[in-house]
């Protein structure tokens, strides 16, 4: 007992041991392992970026340069393809249409999924497990199966070629996904919070909006990200349910196949522009994702 700062409580012992262990570890850990880790990560990122770099490279080249030979960097830097896309309404309306139905779908899905997920996370009721499984089966319904009936259905109710039609159709897989993700987050909130709020005289709607939703805000952020993702990338339903007024960018892009072959430059530029909204969305939710979430029913 020479050291006057000897720990006295078990907790303190543990902390000191951890600190000492940490010091030892930091010294002992070979720097090479750190570098191997970074190297692997860098290799994967290069793999992810290579095809995108190629797309970007091509979008700044003129068509003669693209077909003339392989150049790793645009020799003859041009923004003609972007200028064309951003000035011709047939092109840029595609983006506006896509974003419109994606945003509509996000609103509809989250609005109906929030109460449903709350019910699944807090109550038992007749058929709850089977209902939950049935919801999941909708995630896997191949759109190809539903194409024709959808076309007929929306044509009959007069929604064909509107943004609402696509937004509703994407609900098929987005609502179940939203319920699934939100339910995991809601199960993480202790039930005592609900009970205390009700004792304090909150009505259910008021409690839900004022207390509960702020508590799971990062869950909502993550859910919105996934909703955006799956609605934005889907094209089979979107292009079947629309013709001209609500045509998504994905099907506008097929225009690039002209009589004189494919307009590679325009295709590459249009492709590049479809990546941008996604990057914006990830940027907004990055902190929620980095904060961590463990999904699923527990």
């Amino acid at each position, binding site marked *: 007992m020479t050291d006057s700062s000897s720990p006295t409580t078990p907790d303190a012992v543990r902390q000191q041991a951890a600190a000492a262990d940490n010091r030892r570890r930091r010294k002992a850990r070979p720097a090479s392992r750190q570098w191997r880790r970074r190297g692997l990560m860098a290799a994967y990122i290069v793999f992810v970026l290579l095809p995108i770099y190629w797309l970007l490279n*091509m979008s700044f080249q003129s068509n003669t340069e693209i077909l003339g030979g392989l150049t790793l960097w645009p020799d003859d830097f041009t923004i003609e393809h972007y200028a064309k896309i951003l000035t011709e309404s047939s092109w840029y309306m595609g983006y506006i249409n896509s974003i419109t139905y994606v945003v509509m779908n996000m609103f509809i899905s989250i609005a109906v999924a929030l109460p449903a997920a709350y019910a699944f996370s807090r109550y038992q009721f007749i058929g709850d497990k089977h209902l939950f499984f049935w919801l999941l089966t909708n995630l896997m319904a*191949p759109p190809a199966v539903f194409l024709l009936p959808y076309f007929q259905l929306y044509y009959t109710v007069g929604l064909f070629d509107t943004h609402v039609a696509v937004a509703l159709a994407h609900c098929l897989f987005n609502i179940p996904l939203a319920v699934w993700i939100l339910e995991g987050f809601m199960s993480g909130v202790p039930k005592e919070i609900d009970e205390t709020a009700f004792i304090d005289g909150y009505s259910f709607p008021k409690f839900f909006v004022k207390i509960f939703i702020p508590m799971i805000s990062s869950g909502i952020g993550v859910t919105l990200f996934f909703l955006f993702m799956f609605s934005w990338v889907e094209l089979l339903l979107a292009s079947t349910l629309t013709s001209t007024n609500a045509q998504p960018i994905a099907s506008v892009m097929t225009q690039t196949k002209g009589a004189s072959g494919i307009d590679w430059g325009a295709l590459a530029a249009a492709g590049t522009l479809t990546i941008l909204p996604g990057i914006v969305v990830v940027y907004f939710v990055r902190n929620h994702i980095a904060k961590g979430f463990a999904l699923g029913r527990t």
Partner: protein
Amino acid sequence: MNKVYNNRAWWLILPMLLLVAFSAIIPLMTVVNYSVQDVFDAHTRFFTGTEWFSEMLNNPELQSALLRQFAFSLTVLAIEVPLGIGIALIMPKKGWQASAVLILVTMPLLIPWNVVGSIWQIFTRGDIGLMGWSLRELGYGYNITSSPVDAWATIILMDVWHWTPLIALLCYSGLRSIPDAYYQAARIDRASKWSVFRYIQLPKLTNVLVIGVLLRFMHSFMIYAEPFVLTGGGPGSSTTFLSQSLTTMAIGQQDLGPSAAFSLIYFLIILLVTWVFYTAIMNMQKDNNKEA
């Protein structure tokens, strides 16, 4: 969490149920109706009974498409799940690098599926694509329009590129939700890296992995746009997967009856696989909870 038994919860479910039922049940009923008839239009149609079903079940083309489909789905799962977990483990955890890597890794997920096809089409072409050109310069006669092996390898590579981020993203989030105290305890116990992974990280990842694997299985089973753009199903029919056979039949040839029958068979297969998987996982979790 012990839940309260209350059937009034159905009122909270109702709006969602109506919306999903509108998008799911009405079309499904229509598909069932199509499948027992030869439909020319709403007024000209003949009842055929189970004829389409037996025809589709005995169609060799569809049988081989189904086998290809399973081979494809299992291959990509076997590559993407371990790779995704690995990436999640080495992703930086703090600072600007964490955000930057997160955004870069997630990028492929947010590209429309046919654009993914286009990107890889551009990337792998022998004349103007970086990968195709490089492979040829290295002396390998890479050609996805004539060699089935090249076409398969390219589609799998594309799928790995496209979807590994989903597994990585989910696992990364799962890992971030583990409190630091767990790692500290492991450090005190001098736990090896492997046992940290096996006993701390992997159990926390089960839930996200269930979601990840289910989503990946379902999506890989209905893959359509990417191979359609990249290879058009060729060479021959070596990369024609189920969705594409189905769409060609339904839209291209207007054979509503057979394609509906085929859709239902397809649906039953996925339903069975998913149910088995889901039940197995749920039971595993129940057993774990009992032990805990």
